[in-house]
């Protein structure tokens, strides 16, 4: 007999767990959360040093404690969390069905709704086309954090590539492992993290250089060194035994894509409307799958809201029909949600990211009519919120871009 449930949540990170707790609170029936890892909590499980939980639990927690608290809350509310369970496919013809594998074998499950909360990961060395040899010691921060969690060290004297918050986390993780980064480099002319955070590398004695890129990586078995091209065009050889590559987040959207859901080339995640519905109205998406990358707290709060919409959709009371689609214009990397439906109370704000740090005038164009907003400073790693346009007359294509 095929197992059934009301909502299947795929991914037990902050978004998936927040949605699970909220759905149970709203009386959504049987809610199952499947998680492919052997522990619930998502990325915060590996973040020992960041402050988590203010919004969610009104106290400051470390990553692992925060992850545990989220899972406990979802379980206490009555959600079933299944660990070590991998979704291998979503069928959308007729009723929704999901194929799952775990140590006990392959099973099918029929949910009324699915919430995808599969999160995000950093862009790999391969996807970033880094030039050079491919020895051991080149890792993303996420992998480095997992090493640290297990008390293992992949290198001793790494180079840190990137300068956003995650790169700073990488610095701290290295320190916890007894590794001493030789340098932190950023390809852009200035660090991506807010200036106030950049005291950290100075504190740790790690030089930060911007406008620098890796021209070559040396090493057959392990990384032995890199050749850097500096901002002034000169080259520099630097000995190191590893590279921690941080940032450039990519949603983990392979399931969504394999299921045939519409994917936004801007975010890399599924296209949603302001209720969190993907191109299949029975499948919702939440968390960093929608927008690489936001904090755990943001994902938690957003997923809670979207879970509310999902609960309404279980009784088929969400409005239907796309009225407008929203597209990123010049200078804008993406806009979420990408599709707008008239009526109902969905997300109130659009989330935007710029492609490059820029100061300019945000312009919204709708059917040739334009509404200019005030001048804004935009950064690629910082979200910008705009109110969802009034759709009483609008429709068609809304384009949001930056004008000089």
């Amino acid at each position, binding site marked *: 007999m095929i197992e059934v449930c009301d909502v299947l949540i795929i991914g037990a990170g902050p978004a998936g767990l927040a949605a699970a707790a909220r759905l149970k609170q709203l009386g959504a029936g049987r809610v199952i959360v499947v998680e*492919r*890892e*052997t522990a619930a909590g998502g990325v915060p499980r590996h973040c020992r040093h960041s402050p988590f939980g203010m919004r969610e639990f009104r106290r400051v927690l470390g990553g692992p404690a925060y992850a545990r608290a989220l899972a406990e809350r979802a379980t206490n509310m009555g959600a079933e969390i299944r660990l*070590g369970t*991998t979704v*291998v496919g979503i069928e959308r013809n007729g009723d929704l069905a999901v194929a799952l*594998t775990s*140590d*006990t*074998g*392959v099973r099918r499950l029929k949910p009324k709704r699915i919430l995808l909360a599969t999160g995000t*990961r*950093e862009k*790999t*060395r*391969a*996807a970033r*086309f*880094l*030039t*050079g*040899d*491919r020895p*051991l010691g080149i*890792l*993303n921060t*996420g*992998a480095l954090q*997992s*090493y640290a*969690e*297990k008390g*293992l*060290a*992949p*290198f*001793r004297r790494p180079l840190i590539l990137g300068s956003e918050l995650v790169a700073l986390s990488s610095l701290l993780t290295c320190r916890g*492992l*007894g590794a001493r980064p030789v340098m932190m480099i950023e390809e852009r002319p200035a660090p991506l993290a807010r200036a106030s955070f950049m005291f950290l590398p100075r504190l740790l004695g790690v030089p930060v250089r911007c406008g620098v890129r890796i021209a*070559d*990586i040396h090493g*057959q*078995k*392990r990384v032995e060194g890199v050749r850097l091209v500096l901002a002034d065009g000169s080259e520099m050889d630097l000995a190191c*035994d590893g590279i921690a590559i941080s940032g450039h987040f*990519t949603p*983990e959207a*392979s399931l969504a*894509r*394999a299921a045939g859901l519409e*994917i936004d*080339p801007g975010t*890399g995640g599924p296209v949603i409307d302001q209720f969190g519905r993907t191109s299949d109205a029975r499948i919702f998406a939440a968390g960093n799958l929608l927008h690489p990358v936001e904090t755990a707290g943001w994902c938690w709060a957003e997923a809670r809201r979207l879970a509310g919409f999902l609960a309404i959709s279980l009784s088929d009371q969400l409005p239907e029909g796309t009225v407008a689609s929203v597209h990123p214009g010049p200078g804008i990397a993406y806009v979420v949600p990408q599709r707008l439906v008239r009526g109902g109370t969905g997300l109130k704000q659009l989330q935007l990211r710029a492609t490059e740090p820029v100061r300019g005038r945000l312009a919204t164009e709708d059917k040739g009519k334009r509404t200019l907003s005030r001048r804004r400073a935009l950064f690629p790693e910082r979200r910008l919120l705009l109110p969802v346009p009034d759709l009483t007359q609008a429709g068609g294509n809304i384009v949001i871009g930056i004008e000089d």
Partner: protein
Amino acid sequence: MRVADIAVIGAGAVGCAVARRFALHGASVLVLEKEADLLSGASKANSAILHTGFDAPPGSLELACMQEGYAEYLDIRGQMNLPLLETGAMVIAWTEAELAALGPIADQARANGIGDVRLISPAEIASHEPHLSGRALGALLVPGEHIIDPWSPFLAYLLQAKAHDAEIAFSSEVTGGAFDGEIWTLQTSTGERRAKTVINCAGLYGDAIDKLLLGAADFEIRPRKGQFVVFDKAAADFLRTIILPVPTERTKGVVLCRTAFGNVLVGPTAEEQKDRVRATTDEASLRELVRRAIDMLPPLKDIGVTAVYAGLRPATEEKHYRIAAKPERQWITVGGIRSTGMTAALGIARHVYRMYDSSAAPPLPEQHLPLMPNLAEHLPRDWSQAGYGEMVCHCELVTRREIEAALSGPLPARDFGGLRRRTRCAMGRCQGFGCHARIAELTRGYFETPLTIDPVA
């Protein structure tokens, strides 16, 4: 000290196949590999196409070895559980000049015994490949070209050799040696070894080994680098057939095809270089490969890149295989085996055996047949069977049971590359973001070069 009948230098694709062939005839075989695991040199980076030989030089040894190798692979793959992704290939003409070249290529294919090739129209190309760029002017359809798993077969061959008492010595670089008229004594980094006959399958070091032990080489290796880009599995929805360019004198050109593991591959580049060690990837070449792939298959523009790699092919100053026996020295050199070597390996092994034993004694009646775990995407994988423990690599759905199996048995993985090739762990879209640390944990104590660094005291 044991004197082997045969010492095979190099556990690449050719070395593994040669070792198997001799072991199957009852010879005592010693394999000397300088790296920690098999397929660590030129062999690890190929396009995984099982070629028909349709465009090989007519009457050449290369063609004969490819055809014999192709036939034997099809013959034995069922017994060893080796996959075959039946794709067929199209040699696409994108220009008028290339279109004009297709006729002669078809004639050559038929002369080479590939009778089922035919020229097809743009309409028929579109019916085979609806997502391909509409700019194709025509194509030669070669139904017999297929895709295989480029690593499991050679592991299977070496396992079979080992089951027939071959000794496999890894991390054993040949550093010198002498022939006393009857027996070769070889110095290696793991000690002295003796064998009656030496077969040089040293790939990129083929000429160096000949020079070292014979004093001279008949050829010179001129490494040719090939870079590849592997697209995410989502790309496989858009392509079925192997897309080949019209070949040139120097290279078979940039190929676009699926992999047995469910991805789409584009490559290789063909870059001459002196260095035999470094096979770097570089951003400009990779971006150019991606550009060319999108040019041929436009939906790729929205598909991510899963992996990039590069390898060196042991090209020489001449195009043909450099296989030669020196009976008076009890020595056979198998050199200059380039891109077609993966297809030809089994055929080369037979050819070399015939050079060694012209009476071609039949192989042993009882053969040990290793059954390989399947890694191909289109066939059932380990995760579909209960009791796998845990899913270690989520992108490639690699289980702990698979990893543990690859770390044990007669030829366990001895480095991370070897484990990746045996299981596909960390080969997927996240390249170890999720599983690297767990793999480091599971492989502690197994690898010569471990994934972890010892903690600073």
